[in-house]
């Protein structure tokens, strides 16, 4: 690659990342997460870390840590590589797939370059087919995921995860031990507990942290060791606790909005940021790269490898509410619980242009929202910022409508 092109890539990746880092919160306690993103997206020097990448949220990070590697979630949310990726995958593919392919092709980010291999779960069409595209750049382990959640499928999943471990052991030459897997489970488990507590802070009637900040913090866990993340998040939580002590009740609480739908990942935070600019309070989200990323705990019956693998399969696949599975019921149940807990007054249904599974389930979620008398707004967009004005107009109307509904109560 020409040095000039490379420099241009670097400049652009850095610029877009920095814009989001600057835009998300001037709130205290976010410095750590900002540094994490800066390190991941603005530092282009090679490091000596050995990465194993994975896509989606169905590959247990615990396994990768237990092998002595650093897991990386390769799902791209960046609009510059999405442009590059446009040449590699069909125009109608979603921007996430484009960005992921683009990042590999650009070969500038160390975390993509240092990735020894990537594990791609066969979830949606995009992921399935991009496995082949990406195999031009690095070794790929495609992992089939049963698309149903019955018992037979679960046993199959357990076998698949076991086989994945075998493959990884063979590829890396390292062995997974009870000890290393248990340690990884506990490290991630502790981080997951903090993430849960952090999300709960949004349920308060006057939350002392913004929804976008919570999403930002949780998404950053993809790029940092859970222990460091836990430490920073504990500090953030005690900071919020402090603020809560002195916080007064709001006379006019902000309209409470829940974000459902396609993944929102760094640096594509345009929707949450814009919503908050318009005075809404984001009270939760079901994005697989923030709200759901660290939600479910791993609960092994005992710490034998088999039990841990079963618990990992259960947590990462059985509990997953991704729309690629064959029915929407699990997702609606979890939406119902979350909406109740967060006292949400409106749902923004985010569809990444080209993300068919989420769009397919829109009808069911719409019906569900109707039944529970919660207004829903579908927004279809991608990583570009050209449509910001249009989206803004619709958001404004939506937020206004929520306030109107309140007055009518």
């Amino acid at each position, binding site marked *: 690659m020409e040095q000039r092109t490379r420099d241009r890539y670097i400049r652009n990746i850095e610029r877009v990342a920095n814009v989001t880092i600057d835009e998300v919160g001037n709130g205290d306690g976010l410095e750590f997460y900002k540094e994490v993103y800066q390190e991941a997206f603005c530092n282009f020097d090679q490091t000596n870390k050995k990465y194993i990448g994975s896509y989606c949220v169905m590959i247990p990070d615990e396994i990768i840590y237990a092998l002595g590697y650093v897991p990386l979630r390769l799902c791209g949310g960046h609009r510059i590589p999405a442009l590059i990726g446009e040449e590699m995958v069909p125009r109608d593919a979603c921007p996430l797939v484009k960005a992921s392919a683009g990042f590999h092709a650009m070969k500038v980010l160390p975390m993509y370059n240092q990735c020894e291999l990537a594990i791609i779960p066969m979830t949606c069409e995009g992921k399935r087919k991009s496995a082949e595209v990406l195999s031009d750049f690095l070794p790929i382990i495609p992992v089939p995921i049963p698309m149903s*959640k019955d*018992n037979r499928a*679960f046993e199959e999943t357990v076998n698949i995860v076991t086989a994945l471990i075998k493959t990884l052991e063979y590829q890396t030459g390292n062995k997974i031990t*009870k000890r290393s897997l248990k340690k990884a*489970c*506990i490290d991630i*488990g*502790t981080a997951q*507990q903090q993430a*849960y*507590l952090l999300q709960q802070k949004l349920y308060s009637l006057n939350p002392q942290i913004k929804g976008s900040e919570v999403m930002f913090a949780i998404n950053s866990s993809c790029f940092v060791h859970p222990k460091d993340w836990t430490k920073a998040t504990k500090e953030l939580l005690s900071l919020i606790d402090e603020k809560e002590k002195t916080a007064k009740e709001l006379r006019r609480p902000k309209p409470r909005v829940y974000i459902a739908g396609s993944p929102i990942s760094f640096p594509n935070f345009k929707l949450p940021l814009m919503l908050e600019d318009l005075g809404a309070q984001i009270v939760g989200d079901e994005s697989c790269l923030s709200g759901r990323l660290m939600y*479910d*705990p*791993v*609960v*092994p*019956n*005992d*710490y*034998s*490898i*088999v*039990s841990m693998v*079963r*618990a990992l399969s*259960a*947590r990462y696949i*059985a*509990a997953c*509410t991704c729309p690629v599975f064959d029915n929407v*019921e*699990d997702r609606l*149940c*979890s939406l*119902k*619980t979350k909406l109740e807990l967060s006292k949400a007054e409106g749902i923004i249904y985010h569809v990444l242009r080209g993300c068919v599974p989420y769009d397919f389930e829109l009808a069911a979620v719409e019906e569900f929202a109707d039944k529970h008398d919660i207004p829903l707004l579908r927004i279809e967009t991608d990583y570009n910022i050209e449509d910001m004005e249009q989206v803004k107009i619709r958001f404004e109307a939506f937020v206004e409508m929520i306030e109107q509904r309140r007055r009518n109560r």
Partner: protein
Amino acid sequence: MKTNRITRTRLLILFVLFLFFSFGGYFIGANTEIILPVFNCEYVGGGTTRGVCIAMTEFNKHIHNGWTFPLGVAACIALVLLFGRLWCGYVCPMGFFQDVVTWIRQKLNITQINIPQKLKPFILVGRWYLVFYIFFYDLCKVCPVQFITVPLTGYTSNTSSTGFFWTVVLLVAVMLSDRAFCRVCPIGALMGLANRISGSRLRKCGHACTHCRACLEVCPVDIQEVYEDREHVDITHADCIYCMKCIEVCPEKDALRFDLFGKTIYSSDRVTQEGQHGAEN
């Protein structure tokens, strides 16, 4: 909330009652009028109450001897109707023995064998065969329980090679799978009928459940319905021994709960305390 709070308490209760059943007789004297719905072997040296197992096998022998025996049986049935299989989870010495084996297994990080759901019908047949057997044949001749709880108290019982064979089978089964004996236990089978109407209820809030399978993975008797069912509030299963492990591990607030006579005793909650992970800590 500690994830293993109930399990610890439960094991403690089981332990104390085990001591009571095995050695209590030395202090308060043997008593055969009180019949409890558990496997409590007659050959135990310091036994103090009568297990319903021996009452069943020797039903014909005792039924004509005065009124104390029928009264004891009636009281025993009433106790079962009131509490269901709470007896299994918190009282039965044989249950205690199996839980201790499980506890050791977990400490050693040995996996249990997952019994495929397909085998369930066969287990069911075995269980009801044993019910038939205990009523019409002399179960004591082949009962493996006597080789387990009786030696623990320093006694030996009559020896029979069939009984011995079943003991070995049972020991291996219990090592491999939690509460293996309870799956075929004839007393448990009968008490399971009472589970439908007793005051002990396992209840579920369907939409709070994320289908994470945690409950099913820890359930010692692999009750599928607790995990699967979202329609019914009352999900008490005939096999449930109310060990409440499912409630302990369920990460969703109030998704599962245990009610005793309508009063909620324990309900699920997310564990956010550091150092608390998994079912076994």
